[in-house]
């Protein structure tokens, strides 16, 4: 029983356990949920520590044959690309469960749905089989629908939940057709990713077939990641969702499509990738500019964060489209960093909503004095969103820009400008309106977070700061895999290598001997 399988199974087992707990025993239900996500977090940390960077292939692999007739098996494993995402999933799942103290009705159903969603997300990121990749992701569909519908907020929550469900289903089904098409065209009679990669590297599909299949995967996954112009589901959906759902969805589930592109679409269909990703590099400008400008106009904090999260996805698309080691590494780092950032932002806004019952930026004001911890955390989250050094987003965005500079110079220039300047405008304006300025009497009664309530936010901030100051914790694992992914594309990076050459640095700065 591999460590990964335990990480995936614990939330499902906990959901089953909660189904047996009597409805009135609210403390017990919450305790089971918290303990199970804590266990998942600890297992994820152990996974991260035991992971050996630089080793080829997948680690913590487990394969159980499921359906030989179609070549489907339960196959999980981690390598550099999904290590960060799996650990991110465990962190955000724990934080989301902590933040759910605000749910006071029908807790049993809520925690069951939350745990099923968390388990599905972890399974999706760990999965190395195309069928289970889709299967685990879709497990999150019904929980999202019910959670936004029953525990959501705002008058538009009904519309929002249908919109998010239908829109994401369109994307998922288009991607499913792409996955089945790869399976059928490869003639490999297996859905296993490792097998398929080997077979398609030995005998790739014809260029016309790749050009036909790649857009199915691209747009299917793109819709799921809110690629412009298929992004309109995201802001309203996240604004109407309860805090935990928004944290899990925006923080982790959204990365699924990007991960799918990197893991499946680009390695299996390299010719298609080369032809179609140019389009993506330009569409990402739509994400950055359009959604950035829309975010400037937002008066509701959640809508602002939602739009900003869509804008950040543009950077990840740019990194993937660059098809260079530096760019792809940056893309993975931005994925993890943004996951922490989105979870933190939505968590904080959820806390604010609990206290003030409104998220209209104009109505809030002067809250920093009353909420020192939450206020500071919000300031840090907003600065991280702008790409300020010290937080994990900075190295990620920098790597993306460097990586894409060679092929898409103009795009990078515009992206850098929009990401930093436009981002700064709406982020800092939000901070100014909410936290600074004269204190209003109606918010005299708001209380800062008690120590237990600070825990999820501290955890996420620690992740952001940690990765921001020591990005090599993650990029050392990502870089070799990114190199493998971009090898067919032969893009020579015109930047210095990430690791310093031996003897190039003064002796006391060297952490470990380089090969």
């Amino acid at each position, binding site marked *: 029983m591999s460590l990964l399988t335990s990480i995936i199974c614990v939330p499902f087992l906990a959901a089953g356990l909660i189904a047996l707990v009597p409805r009135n025993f609210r403390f017990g239900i919450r305790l089971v949920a918290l303990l199970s996500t804590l266990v998942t977090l600890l297992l994820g940390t152990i996974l991260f520590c035991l992971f050996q960077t630089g080793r080829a292939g997948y680690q913590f692999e487990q394969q159980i044959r499921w359906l030989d*007739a179609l070549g489907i098996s339960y196959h999980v494993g981690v390598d550099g690309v999904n290590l960060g995402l799996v650990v991110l999933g465990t962190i955000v799942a724990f934080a989301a469960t902590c933040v759910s103290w605000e749910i006071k009705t029908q807790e049993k159903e809520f925690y069951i749905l939350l745990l099923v969603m968390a388990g599905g997300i972890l399974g999706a990121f760990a999965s190395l089989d195309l069928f289970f990749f889709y*299967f685990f992701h*879709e497990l999150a569909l019904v929980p999202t*629908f019910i959670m936004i*519908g029953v525990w959501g907020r705002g008058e538009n929550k009904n519309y929002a939940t249908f919109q998010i469900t239908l829109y994401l289903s369109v994307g998922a089904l288009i991607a499913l*057709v792409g996955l*089945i098409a790869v399976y059928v065209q490869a003639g490999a009679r297996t859905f296993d990713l490792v097998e398929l990669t080997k077979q398609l590297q030995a005998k790739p599909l014809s260029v016309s077939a790749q050009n036909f299949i790649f857009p199915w995967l691209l747009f299917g996954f793109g819709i799921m990641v809110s690629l412009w112009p298929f992004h309109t589901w995201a802001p309203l959906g996240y604004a109407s969702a309860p805090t935990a759902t928004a944290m899990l969805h925006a923080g982790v589930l959204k990365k699924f499509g990007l991960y799918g592109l990197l893991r499946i679409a680009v390695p299996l269909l390299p010719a298609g990738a080369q032809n179609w990703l140019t389009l993506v590099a330009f569409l990402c400008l739509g994400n950055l500019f359009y959604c950035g400008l829309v975010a400037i106009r937002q008066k509701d904090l959640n809508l602002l964060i939602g739009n900003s999260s869509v804008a950040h996805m543009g950077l990840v698309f740019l990194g993937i489209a660059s098809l260079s080691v530096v760019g792809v590494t940056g893309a993975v780092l931005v994925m993890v960093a943004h996951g922490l950032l989105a979870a933190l932002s939505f968590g904080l806004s959820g806390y604010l909503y609990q206290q003030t019952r409104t998220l209209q930026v104009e109505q809030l004001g002067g809250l920093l004095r009353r909420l020192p911890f939450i206020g500071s955390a919000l300031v840090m989250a907003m600065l991280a969103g702008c790409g300020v050094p010290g937080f994990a987003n900075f190295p990620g965005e920098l790597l993306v820009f460097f990586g894409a500079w060679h092929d898409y110079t103009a795009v990078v220039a515009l992206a850098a400008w929009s990401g930093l300047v436009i981002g700064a405008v709406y982020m800092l304006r939000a901070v100014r309106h909410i936290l600074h300025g004269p204190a209003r009497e109606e918010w005299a009664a708001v209380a800062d977070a008690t120590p237990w309530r600070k825990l999820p936010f501290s955890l996420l901030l620690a992740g952001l700061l940690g990765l921001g100051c020591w990005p090599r914790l993650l990029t050392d694992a990502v870089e070799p895999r990114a190199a493998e992914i971009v090898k067919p594309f032969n893009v020579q990076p015109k930047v210095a290598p990430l690791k310093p050459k031996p003897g190039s640095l003064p002796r006391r700065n060297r952490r470990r001997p380089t090969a």
Partner: protein
Amino acid sequence: MNASLVSLEVFVVLLGVGLLLVDLWTPAAEKRMLGYGAAVALGLILCFSFAAGFATDTPQHAFGQSYVLDGLAMFFKRLFLLAAIIVLLMSVEFADRIEVGISEFYALIVFALAGMMFAASANDLVLLFVSLELITVTFYVLNSFQRSRLQSLEAGVKYLILGALSSAFLVYGIALVYGTANTMDFATLATQAKGLAAKPVFLLGLLLVIAGLTFKIAAFPFQFWAPDVYQGSPTPATAFLAFGSKAAGFVLLLRLLFSAVPDVTLHWARLLMVLSAITILYGNLCAIPQRNLKRLLGYSSIANAGYLLLGIAALNQAGASAILYYLGGYLFTVLAAFTVICLVMRKLAAEDITALAGLNQRSPLLAATMTLAMVSLAGVPPLAGFFGKFLLLRAMVQQGGYWLVAVAIVGVVISLYYYFGIIRAIYWSKDPSDLSPIEVSGPLRAALYGCIAGMFYLGVFPSALLRAATQAVKTLRW
């Protein structure tokens, strides 16, 4: 002539006749318990069907090649028996809403079952017609059984009229086929089909037969009866119609197209694809504005017929086994949904979707069952409906008909809207008017648990049924 092959049908018919006889000696208050007895008897017959005597390595024939007992026939017979057991349990629950003649209701269900079992084994056009008529005529009566309700009579009359029309097409088609081919037998037709394919009269006859069959499966062009009949009929009759009639139609279609005239079918791929596309779009689009739950399920059943036609239009073994798998999952899903409707909607006026409001507080079991049934119908993992749709899509992608796959995706997304609308009604609609708890009897509770278990099992452990389905379709000609 090997009469022991028909033993299952003989037992079923004897059970039906026995019900009518025992009814004469049963006091009026006890009559509804006969349903339990019939269900137990059918359960015994189902267990007997797994006995060694029905080993299906080689097809066995009876009545001079017109009746065949092979893997395909046994697969469907067992599904029909299981469906009838659950429908009988539902009918016992429904018995208080049938004023008089409850034993005839049970007996008619059993006779319809016999018709379906004969249809699963039909190997020539005569038995095809006879079994279809047995099913249809029985349902004429079943659909209009609540004589004091105008809607039930209306449903029966509509079914009668459209059923008679489609039977007319069917018989005319059979006559033309017989006139050109000089045989009714599927095996002989297969050997002659190459020469006959050039004759327009033969092709016309075949088209008319297929059109007649589309009535049974509620596919274009004869699907108009479904919503009205589903809405008006007594709920157990609707449930049996929803599964049984569709499955019977499909086994006949499979045998006709792939066993009798495979050479002609190969040229009709585009026609079948167009039929499938129109059916999917019609069913899904018309379901959007529906407020009556049974009517909505009627349109959804049209859409499901469209998805199943995808499997036929794929023209390969993967498609046929996908159809069988999908029908297996469909059984649990649709019977669970109708059982919940039977329990929740006791008054005529209360068949609106809003009657489901507050179901979570009234009965968590029923709320969970209905939610799972809707999720499975929508095709979301980890339930049976997802894997069935996955298999159908795979078969179509193998064939290369991407435009039809796109239409199917559009259909699935549209269907998500109205299925999830039902989930919404259960969990967060406006203030529910009635919050009294709902009593679920023991046998029906067991049936519901069985359906839930079936939906999960077929979604998470598909290998057993898939192996059986693939084995069953090997007897068709590829």
